[in-house]
C-alpha cells in the first residue's frame, strides 16, 4: 500500500507493507540515524519526532502516521554546523558509543521547544525513556541544560 510522509520537511510517497513499522520504513529510506536496539518500545534508540512529539518508531505502524510530519536527527543540523544539543553533547562527553544519541537529541529538542528552561528534574523525567549504557547520564543531562541556555540566549539576542 502507498502512504505519504513528510520527513524533515521533504515529501515522500512510499510503498509499504501494511504491517511495517516506521523504524524499518525510515531505515529503508536511508534515515539510518533511527536505531534499532530493543525493538520493543523500551529503550528510546529509535525515537523520532511525530508532529514535533517524540515517539518510538519501532512500535509505530507506518500506516498509522500516513500524511504526517516526521523529524529525524538528519534534519536537525545544517551543513557542518551542529545543533546546540549535539554540540553540547560533544563538549560534555555525552556520547560514547553514540548509538542512543539520535534519540536523545530529538527527545531533548522536543523538551526544549516545549520548555525552554528545563530544570535538572525536567530533563531527567523527559529523557527517562532514553536508555544509555555508556555514559552514566550525567554528561548528557548537563548537555541538554547547556543547550537550552544557549538557545535561550540566542533567542534573547
Amino acid at each position, binding site marked *: 500500500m502507498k502512504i505519504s510522509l513528510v520527513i524533515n520537511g521533504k515529501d515522500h510517497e512510499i510503498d509499504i507493507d501494511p504491517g511495517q513499522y516506521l523504524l524499518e520504513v525510515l531505515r529503508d529510506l536511508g534515515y539510518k*540515524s533511527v536505531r534499532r*536496539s530493543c525493538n520493543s518500545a523500551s529503550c528510546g534508540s529509535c525515537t523520532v519526532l511525530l508532529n514535533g512529539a517524540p515517539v518510538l518508531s519501532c512500535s509505530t505502524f507506518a500506516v498509522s502516521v500516513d500524511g504526517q510530519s516526521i523529524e529525524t536527527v538528519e534534519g536537525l543540523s545544517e551543513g557542518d554546523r*551542529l545543533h546546540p544539543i549535539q554540540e553540547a553533547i560533544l563538549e560534555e562527553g555525552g556520547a560514547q558509543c553514540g548509538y542512543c544519541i539520535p534519540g536523545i537529541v530529538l527527545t531533548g529538542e522536543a523538551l526544549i521547544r516545549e520548555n525552554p528552561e528545563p530544570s535538572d528534574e525536567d530533563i531527567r523525567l523527559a529523557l527517562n525513556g532514553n536508555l544509555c549504557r555508556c555514559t552514566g547520564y550525567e554528561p548528557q543531562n548537563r548537555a541538554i541544560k547547556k543547550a537550552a541556555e544557549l538557545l535561550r540566549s540566542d533567542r534573547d539576542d
Partner: protein
Amino acid sequence: MTRDFEVVGKPKKKLDGKAIVRGKPVYTPDYDVPNALTVKLLRSPHPNAMIKTIDFQSALTIQGVVCVLTHEDIDRVPYSRAGQGYPEPSPYDSYLLDNKVRYVGDPVAIVAATSEKIARQALKSIKVEYEVLDPILDMEKSMAEGAPRIHDEADCSGVFDSSRNIAAHFEMEIGETEKALDRCDFVVSKTYHVDTQLHAALEPHNAVTYLDPSGRLIVISSTQVPFHCRRILARILKKPMSEIRVIKPRIGGGFGGKQSIIVEPYAALVTLKTGQPARINYTREEVSMATNIRHEMKYDIRVGATKDGRIRAIWMKGLSNTGAYGEHCLTTFMVSGSKTLPLYNKVDAVRFEGDVVYTNLPPAGAYRGYGAPQGLFALDCAIDELALEMNIDPLKLKEMNSIREGETSPIFKIMGEGREGVPQIMNSCKLQECIDLGKKVIGWDKKRGKRLENGTRVRGVGCALAMQGSGIPKIDMGAATIKMNEDGSFNLLVGATDIGTGSDTILAQIAAEVLTVPLEKIIVYSSDTDITPFDVGAYASSTTYVSGNAVKMACEDVKTQILSLASSYLEREKGDLELVDGVVSCSDGLSITLEELATKHTYTFNQRQIAATASYVGEESPPPFMATFAEVEVDMDTGKIDLINLVSYADCGVALNPIQAMGQLEGASMQGIGWALYEDVIYAKNGRMLTNDFFTYKIPSRMDYGKLTCGLVESYEPTGPFGAKSIGEIGIDTPIPAIANAIFDATGIRLRQAPFKSEKMLFEILSLEV
C-alpha cells in the same frame, strides 16, 4: 619528564563525535550490502539434550529460503569463542553447531533466506527431535556425584575435569594462611554471592559478510576483537587467514559482550556456502540469552586481623559459573583474585582457590571488570565486617592496610591471566588522595554510624577501595603505523578498537603531542585486519596504555626521521634542530614547516615515504586505583533502597583526555549501580532466561539514582604514555560493596547476595521483625 602537554591532557572532543551525534550511517547495520541474505538461528528449547533428527525439508520448499545448515553439514571443529591472545587460556569446548545442546538458546540450525519474514517462517517449519537430558541449573550442583556431564564429547580440550563439570581450577597460597588466621585476634568468615549481569549494549550483536571480487571473505562486524575474530574464523571455517578480512566500523557498545566470536561465523558460513552476502542481526532476546553474560560467583572468605589493626591473612575460596561453555572461564576467575588481593598487601599469608564450573545456563564471558567486581564484593565487605568486630571505622581499617606508592605485592608475580603474572612496584598510586577527597565529599565523619532518620526512612554511608590493571603484561600486543602525507598531515593506523571509549581520539592526541601538530592533522583509521597493524583489541583496560605506548613509539621514530631529513635538507646538524609546533627550526633561525618538508620529500628532494610502525607489549600492568563512597536511604516500611549519592575518585595516572576518562568512570559506575540495585537475571524452571528484554531486565535510567559524583586524581605513571594508566573498567568494581556497606550502615542489615533489590531488602527487614 615534561608535564606541559599541548594536546594530551586536554578535554578534546571525540574525533568520531560529529558523525555519531548527527546519526550518520557508521554502525554495522547501516552498511547496506545489496542482496544480503538474512541469517537466523533455530535455537534449543531444552537446557540439555541430544539432537536425534532435524527435518528441514519443508523449510526448503518455502520460496526465498536459500539454505538450511545443521551440524551434519559443517566441519566439526572444537574452538573457544573467547577473543583472547593465542593460544587462548580457555577450553576448546564449543562447536559452531553440535549434535548436543547445552542451554536454552543453543543454536541448532542456520537458516538463510531472502527476507527476515521468510527466515522466521522457515525456522518455524523445522522439526527437531530431541533426547532430553537432565540439566544442571544450579552451579552448586555441578560437581556433585552423579551430576549429568555437560561436556562429554571426546574432542573437547583444555577442560580442567570434564567428568566433574569443572571447566577451570586455580589455587595459590603465599605463607601459611590457616596458621596466620589462627594467630589473629579477630577473624570473620562469611559467604558472598554475586549474580550474573547482562552487558545490554544498545547495538545488538550483528555482522555482514560477503566475498570481494577476488573471492576473499569480507566480514564487517560489531566486534571488540577484529584480529582475534579473523584468527578464530580461519580456524572454524578452515580457511587461510589471508583469505579473510575483518573490518570494524563504529560499535554501539561492547563492555566485554563483543569480546567473544559469536555471530560472525554463522553469516560467514552462509556466504561461503552460497556465495551470497549474508547479514545476521541478533534480536534483543538473543543478545540477552544467547551471547555471553557475566560469571556468577560465590566466595567463602575468611579475613583475620590483629589488635593493632593490621590485616594478617585472607582466604578466598570461590565457585564461578561459566554456563554451557568456558570462554574466559579461568582468566575471569584469576582476575577476581589478582585484581583485588594486592590491594591489601600487608598480609602475612593469603590463599586463593576455587573452581569454575559448567551449568546448562547461557555461557558467561568477558564483562567489564572481568571477575574483579565479584572478588571485591567478598573482600571489601568482609573487611567492612571485620572492622565492626574490631570496633573501628571500616574506612580506617581499609586505609591502614591498603597498598601505597612504592609498595608491591607478591600476588602480581604469582597470578597473571591464565598463567604467571609479572612482579611490579607501584610507581604511581594516589589511593590516599582518592580516599581523602571522597571522604570529604560524602561527609563520611558526619554521616557514618549516625543512621539519620526521616520518618520511616534511614540513611547510611559505605565505602570501598579498588584497583584494576592496564593491559595484560607480556601477552597482549598493540601496534601502530604512522605515515606522513605530503601536506604535513599524518595517517595513524591502529589495530586498537574504539568501541565508543574514545580510543581513536586519545591515540591521535598522543600522536599529535609527539609530532607537535594540531589534533586535526592526525587522521585515524582503526581496526581493519587488511590495513592496520595488529592489536589484540579493546579489553583488559589496555588501549590507552598498550596501544598508546605503541603509538608514542611509532611517532617518536617518525619524528627522528623528520629531523634527519630536515638536517640534510637544511644542511644543519641534527642536534641543532628541534620540532616545535609543526616547524623544524635550527638555533640559527633557519626553519621549515612539516608541510614544506613533506612536499619536498615526496616530489623533489631525497624522495621517500616517511613512516614507522611500532609494537608494544607491556612489561607490567600498572593498576589504576579508586575510592568509592555511597550514601543510601532505605525505607524500613517498604524496603525501598534509594541511592542518594555515589562518589568515586580514581587515579588513572595522567588522564590523556579528561572528558573521555570521566566518561569511562561515570559510565562504569552507573553499570555498577545497575548491577547492585536493579539488574536481576531470572530463569524459568527449565533454565530459559526470562529477563531477556529491557522491561524485565532493568538497567538504570535517569530517575534511578540521586547523584553521581566522579573525579580524577592525577598521578604520573612512568611506564605509561605521557604518564597514563587505564580507566575503562575500574569504575564497575566498587558500587556493589560500597552500596552493601552503606545499607548495613543505614539498617544494620548485611546483604551478602547481590543484586540488592528493594523487595529482597523488605524480606530482610520483615525477617528481623519476626
